């Protein structure tokens, strides 16, 4: 997902009876479905895990601007250009809400960005894949925003108040993105043979990376169990992946496109599709920095930051000067 494989610092999920009174009261609040607000008591592990998760999610929104921004200057019509600009602008806005949510946990945006730039924090693996044709912009909206929605809709109910509220705002926009992406796919799939070929090629390249967005199976993972107990993760990775496949396969069929999986088949018994796992070796390579675009993506973010240093400094110095000038002014208004 936008947050993949988040560690919790737990080696196992504790039973209520083993917890300190504070931690037990905290867990009971969560179990009752209450929201935890920034000023309220929370275990250190909860706070740290949320910072990792929200931070990674924020970074994904920001880095996610790059593969799509890649086609803004080449969008094929003025309307498509405007829609794509608005989408990328939304993603920057999502990053902003999420950094703000993380700040309520006591970590600044600049610190988180520093951790991203030094490689200590990650962003979603999906944004390390290139957008090679215009159809990729359709596929990203359809599949990548689609997969994001799968995860983020349940997260609207997450236990941490600011994160939950950020998700509510974000989900509304993400569903627009998905519809707009699918609309590009419809045009391409119904277009010229070249356009149709581009659409199929985009699906071929983005299918498995989209499935990887949910992360490897976490049935056995202590971290997932802990995150689920804290309600900062609502479903297992496999559940979400299954839902995504079941939702997406009919959409591909409607487009007249073929999902690149020869083992894909409807399973009447489980009322869902059987499908092939993505290549998890590739996933771990991408996480390790060996995806097709890791270097460019991070370099682009670092460059934006470094090139903008004078801008930050200039504004800070101006603010100080303005402050001094205000202080020196006689109290004429009184």
């Amino acid at each position, binding site marked *: 997902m936008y947050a993949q494989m988040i560690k919790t610092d737990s080696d196992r999920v504790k039973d209520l009876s083993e917890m300190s009174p504070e931690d037990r009261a905290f867990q009971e609040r969560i179990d009752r479905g209450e929201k935890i607000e920034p000023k309220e008591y929370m275990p250190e592990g909860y706070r740290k895990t949320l910072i990792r998760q929200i931070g990674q999610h924020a970074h994904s929104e*920001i880095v996610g*601007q*790059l593969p799509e*921004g890649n086609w*803004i*200057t*080449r*969008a*094929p*019509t*003025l*309307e*498509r*250009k*405007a829609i794509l*600009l*608005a989408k*990328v*602008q939304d993603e*920057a*806005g999502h*990053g*902003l809400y999420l*950094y703000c949510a993380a700040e309520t946990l006591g970590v600044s*945006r600049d610190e988180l960005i520093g951790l991203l730039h030094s490689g200590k924090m990650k962003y979603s693996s999906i944004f390390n894949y290139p957008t090679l044709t*215009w159809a990729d912009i359709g596929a990203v909206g359809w599949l990548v925003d689609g997969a994001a929605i799968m995860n983020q809709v349940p997260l609207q109910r997450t236990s941490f108040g600011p994160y939950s509220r950020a998700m509510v705002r974000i989900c509304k926009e993400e569903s627009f993105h998905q519809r707009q992406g699918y609309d*590009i796919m419809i*045009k*391409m799939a119904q*277009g*010229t043979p*070249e*356009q149709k070929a581009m659409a199929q090629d985009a699906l071929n390249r983005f299918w498995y990376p989209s499935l990887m967005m949910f992360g490897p199976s976490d049935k056995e993972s202590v971290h997932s169990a802990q995150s689920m107990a804290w309600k900062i993760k609502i479903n297992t990775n496999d559940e979400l992946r299954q839902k995504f496949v079941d939702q997406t396969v009919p959409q591909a069929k409607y487009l007249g496109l073929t999902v690149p999986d020869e083992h894909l088949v409807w399973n009447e018994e489980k009322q869902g599709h059987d499908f092939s796992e993505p290549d998890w070796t590739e996933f771990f390579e991408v996480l390790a920095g060996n995806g097709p675009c890791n270097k460019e993506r991070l370099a*682009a973010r670092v*460059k*934006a*930051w470094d*090139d*903008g*240093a*004078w*801008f*930050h*400094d*200039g*504004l*800070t*110095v*101006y*603010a100080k*000067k303005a402050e001094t000038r205000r202080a020196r002014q006689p109290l004429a208004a009184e």
Partner: protein
Amino acid sequence: MAQQSRPPSETADVIELLLRTGDNTLVLGHRVSEWCGHSPVLEEDIALANSALDLIGQTQLWLGLAGELEALMNGQARTADQLAYLRDAAQFRNVLLVERPNGDFGQTLMRQFLFDAWHLELLKTLENSTHPRIAEIAAKAIKEVYYHVERSADLVIRLGDGSDESHRRMQAALDDIWSYAGELFVADAYDERLAAAGIAPNPADLKPKWEQTVLRVLSEATLTVPAGTFVHKGGKRGIHTEHLGFILAQMQFLQRAYPGAVW
């Protein structure tokens, strides 16, 4: 429609005006959109995308009307997209200022400010154009442009009067772009006829107000107005810098590579 009672020669003049106005917003919108995801700070990514969106939206209206009026000239209308994506550089009528490369953020900002201050004065006059369709578009666009000027002026002031480094960069940006601003105020025969018909201002008449804004902001920004009076021009006649060809190569790629496809 009002314009149908107008002489065809006037329609040709109006189309020229619409292309000039729409090409300015199109090319500047393109330049601004190049920043997407690369600006110094998240808030600027959002603000720049917003400006680009406004400019592209305005382009759709200006070029849309230009294409529509072409039908009165030769019976054949064109869409805003056809005008944007299927003309070559020599048919573009934007001023050279807007095709200048982004440079650093200060250069982008200075270009934007000089343009915004002019754009606002232009739209104030066009709002009262005798051509109702033009007045209508101007009234819509001006709401966005008020905000553009406010934002770019504010940043020019804060960075000009900021650190030594930001001051130096903003001064360099001003020195670099200044000679491209003058083209906004150079009138040709089209402009004079349009002004006489009350359709558009004579560009030269926009200068005093523009100067007022610009000099006030630059002085607050502690920046020095360059002494040179030389003006680079040609864009309004279709003689562009080398940069426009590359802008169009990118912008028009899909429409050119897959003629007739629907996107």
